[in-house]
């Protein structure tokens, strides 16, 4: 996955191509958000799309998160297929009422009459020195909400092929793009086809311990697995990729084979996504476990701004490998 002579694309480019395909395929699809037009998005994801599709379909909005998410809901209700970009997950908190109290509830509270086929994309995560108000990993919060689907693409293929499935979903879908992944480069596997949004993916098969992660922590977890392999520990790496609904079958199937599990989540530990995964393992796989479930999470502090402090506060390869060793030790 590192840049080399076989690299021909990046995560950012594949997200863009996915939107280009969606805009070309379906007139109901449009993109809106802050700086998505002329600027090409704060992280360059939509660069050039306004030239191809024009300012009606690639719309720069005022700095009004509640408004552009709420308007996205309205447009979805009216039959459009909006893609709303929120610059970062932190800014999505300004639209939380629209997401939770509106998008996620309208179908139920209208007796099934008002579906909201809305896709919301946003950047999540730390590691880029953006400090405590631009670095949250809140996808676990959103995974708490009934009525929506939550995705976290971590590979080039998921960046490219999840969007079409998300747009085809009749319910609101939130897509979390970890900021550290945009420059991820490599060769795209074009043969994998549309992504099934109900299944996790085994990124590295193994027999000794299940390392369960998603998003920006996937690369570090795969590195940890390589290191463990040198020590004779054969780790399996599971990329959850769909955070709601969680794919219990893949998670538990893996744990039943390896009998050990480490959950890696950049989000905070307490009441977080890692707690949910660990609880499901305890509920459904307790008698298959040979060791307590381990968790490697972000430190329970506001994300530091100083580079060395930020690094210390996030899950890193060493810590993941150490946790895996504890389960097999």
């Amino acid at each position, binding site marked *: 996955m590192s840049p080399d002579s076989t690299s021909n694309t990046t995560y950012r480019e594949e997200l863009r191509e996915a939107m280009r395909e969606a805009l070309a395929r379906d007139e109901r699809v*449009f993109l809106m958000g*802050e*700086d998505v*037009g*002329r*600027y*090409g998005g*704060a992280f360059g994801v939509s660069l050039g799309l306004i030239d191809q599709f024009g300012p*009606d379909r690639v*719309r*720069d*909005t*005022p*700095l*009004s998160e*509640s*408004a552009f998410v709420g308007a996205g809901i309205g*447009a979805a209700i*009216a039959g*459009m297929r909006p893609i709303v970009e929120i610059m970062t997950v*932190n800014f999505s908190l*300004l639209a939380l009422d629209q997401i939770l109290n509106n998008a996620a509830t309208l179908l139920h509270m209208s007796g099934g009459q008002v579906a909201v086929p809305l896709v919301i994309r946003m950047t999540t995560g730390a590691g880029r*020195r953006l*400090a405590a*108000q*631009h670095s949250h990993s809140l996808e676990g919060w959103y995974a708490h909400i009934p009525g929506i689907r939550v995705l976290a693409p971590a590979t080039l293929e998921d960046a490219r092929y999840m969007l079409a499935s998300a747009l085809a979903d009749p319910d609101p879908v939130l897509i979390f793009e970890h900021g550290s992944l945009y420059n991820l480069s490599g060769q795209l596997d074009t043969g994998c086809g549309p992504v099934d949004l109900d299944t996790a993916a085994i990124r590295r098969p193994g027999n000794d311990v299940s390392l369960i992660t998603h998003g920006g922590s996937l690369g570090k977890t795969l590195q940890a697995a390589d290191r463990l392999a040198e020590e004779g520990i054969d780790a399996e790496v599971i990329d959850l990729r769909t955070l709601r609904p969680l794919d219990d079958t893949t998670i538990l199937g893996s744990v039943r084979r390896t009998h050990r599990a480490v959950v890696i989540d950049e989000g905070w530990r*307490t009441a977080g996504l890692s707690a949910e995964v660990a609880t499901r393992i305890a509920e459904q796989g307790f008698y298959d476990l040979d060791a307590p479930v381990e968790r*490697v999470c972000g*430190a*329970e*502090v*506001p994300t*530091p*701004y*100083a*580079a*060395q*402090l930020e*690094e*210390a*506060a*996030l*899950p*890193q*390869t*060493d*810590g993941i490998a*150490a946790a895996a060793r504890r389960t097999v030790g």
Partner: protein
Amino acid sequence: MSVKSTAAGDSPAKGRGRTTTRGTAAKRRAGEPGLVQLLTPQGERVEHPDYAIDVTPEELRGLYRDMVLTRRFDAEAITLQRQGELGLWASLLGQEAAQIGSGRATRPDDYVFPTYREHGVAWTRDVDPLNLLGMFRGVNHGGWDPNENNFQLYTIVIGSQTLHATGYAMGVAKDGADAAVIAYFGDGASSQGDVAEAFTFAAVYNAPVVFFCQNNQWAISEPTEKQSRVPIYQRAAGFGFPGVRVDGNDVLAVLAVTRAALEHARSGQGPMLVEAFTYRMGAHTTTDDPTRYRSDEEREEWASKDPIARLRTYLEREGIAGEAFYAEVEAESDALAKRVREGVRNMPNPGTMAIFENVYADGSSLVDEERAQFVEYMSSFESGDVATAGTGH
């Protein structure tokens, strides 16, 4: 999605039954809508019927000095960021008059709520520039005591300080104090719900707060037309308080208008909105490249309205300052630059355990537990510190 959001007021409305309103807005935008100016871009002193000002030669030289030093400090900060000494910098280049004029209009007992770009206002409140750089370097959180100079910490979240300022002003009024609060924000922030709600609150509670909008024309890549169909100052009328647009590159006009607005607030008449019409000559922050979205011509046009050049022209024409003064300011500027360069490079990095500080005011068992785990983990490295060992947990 049939309603088009065309640029504000620059095309006739068609069949939406709002022609009158929109037509008026179009006319106002076409001309110069009630721009308060006391010093033209050519450095000529003009009068305004509502905003007179009487400044001494000493004060005029002081304003010039403030702006030059602020600009120099800003330039040094950009260079330091480029050299990797700061994580980020938000330049104020071009906005010196808006910031120095408004900052100098405040009294020591007034209270300032800045955004993250108010380095000039910080200067007028005697906040040590090194403290600003320490925050952007990441070696401290906050960096200064907000109550020492009545200058709140920088706010990164767009527009939210307008609400804090409103609440603070309500407290000031409750105390019966003879002081006002000033909240800075930008043209982009004017679209945030927080700002609209701050306007509502301040008006309803008659809070002594001045909303000071530096309309620098660009919210990252989006021009002001993407934020508002009417000039921003006109929004105040809908909330029930006065709004005024001032030439934000005219330090005298900004000083006069802000003084009046603060006096309006202090004297129990409630909030006021000041829109300082200015221009961000540099990038949004050091992560931004403005050549991607705006023209050199536009920048050149605004360069001809430079706030420092116009005051200098006036000072020279009136014989208020001579070569000795300019040389003195230049020397002071060099000294300031040297001081901040050296000061930044010598700032010690915080220890890794700093990440567990100030999560709760009185500590927390959860944080204590994590801290203990961390200490144990760090002790597994030879250096005893995970940061110097170059790896995380």
